[in-house]
């Protein structure tokens, strides 16, 4: 398969993730959609690594996975903290930063 097909799949997954981030209001689902966007970037990186016969893109994809895991840990910690304080789990109602 030409590499272009992989890049088109990557673009479609990225845009689905963008649509999810823009439309959903549950921060948990927004984190899931961020994962979709990071995974789309990973697919593009691995596709370019294959196109150039160079493994460095795969290293980049692995580092992106590490950063995504960190983002998930902090984001889920925030959601648990919100739930503990009985705040609404809804990004439209969380407008104020003050604690």
């Amino acid at each position: 398969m030409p590499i272009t097909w992989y890049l088109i799949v990557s673009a479609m997954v990225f845009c689905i993730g963008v649509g999810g981030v823009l439309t959903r209001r549950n921060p948990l689902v927004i984190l899931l959609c961020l994962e979709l966007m990071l995974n789309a970037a990973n697919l593009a990186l691995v596709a370019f690594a294959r196109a150039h016969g160079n493994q460095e893109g795969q290293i980049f994809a692995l580092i992106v996975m590490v950063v995504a895991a960190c983002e998930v840990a902090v984001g889920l910690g925030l959601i648990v903290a919100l739930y503990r304080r009985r705040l609404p789990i809804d990004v439209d109602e969380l407008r104020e930063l003050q604690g």
Partner: protein
Amino acid sequence: MAEVSFFVAALIALSGAGGTVLLRNPFYAVLALVCHLLGLAALFLLLRAEFVAAAQVIIYAGAVMVLYVFVVAYVGGQDRPLSPRHGPGMRAIALVFATALLVEIAIAVIGSGLTVLDEEGSGFFAGFGTPAEIGELFLTKFLLAFEIASLLLLIAAVGAVILARRRSGLDDPRELSVADLMRSGEKGTIGDAERGSLEEAAGPGSH
């Protein structure tokens, strides 16, 4: 054969992504994301990235998604429909924006005129993308990135624990602790204890 596997894997990945965005129940959205990750791992295998595919299945679909499932089970709750304040207008704008982005990226990819994209990719050597090769790169050329990644994971773990810990004074004031019951023996009634725990909730170190 490669074409069939590509289309099957791409279909699984895309339907998983669509399910993540469209399903109302966050638990089902997490399961759809697991499906998407498995399809993506198959695409990685087709691109000769064996180690990345294995890490994707083990770390993402295994560990990270388990974290999500636990938090969904802890927080729970359905996603409410869009409020009338925004209505379907916002959703239409979001869809238009996402579609415009897709068209733009597709034009950028197809219109780039890179000949390397029209082929199956340049030649690869034996052992391309195997754990041995990736591990050697990580411990030689990308050692600094590897060490910084470990430090970043440590900081994120500590930060998550600090964010999600149980703070004193933020508990429900109606909740009675053992210390309140012991104090109620001195003062007499449970009502005193409740007032005591209210004072406790007002600020740390009040007792």
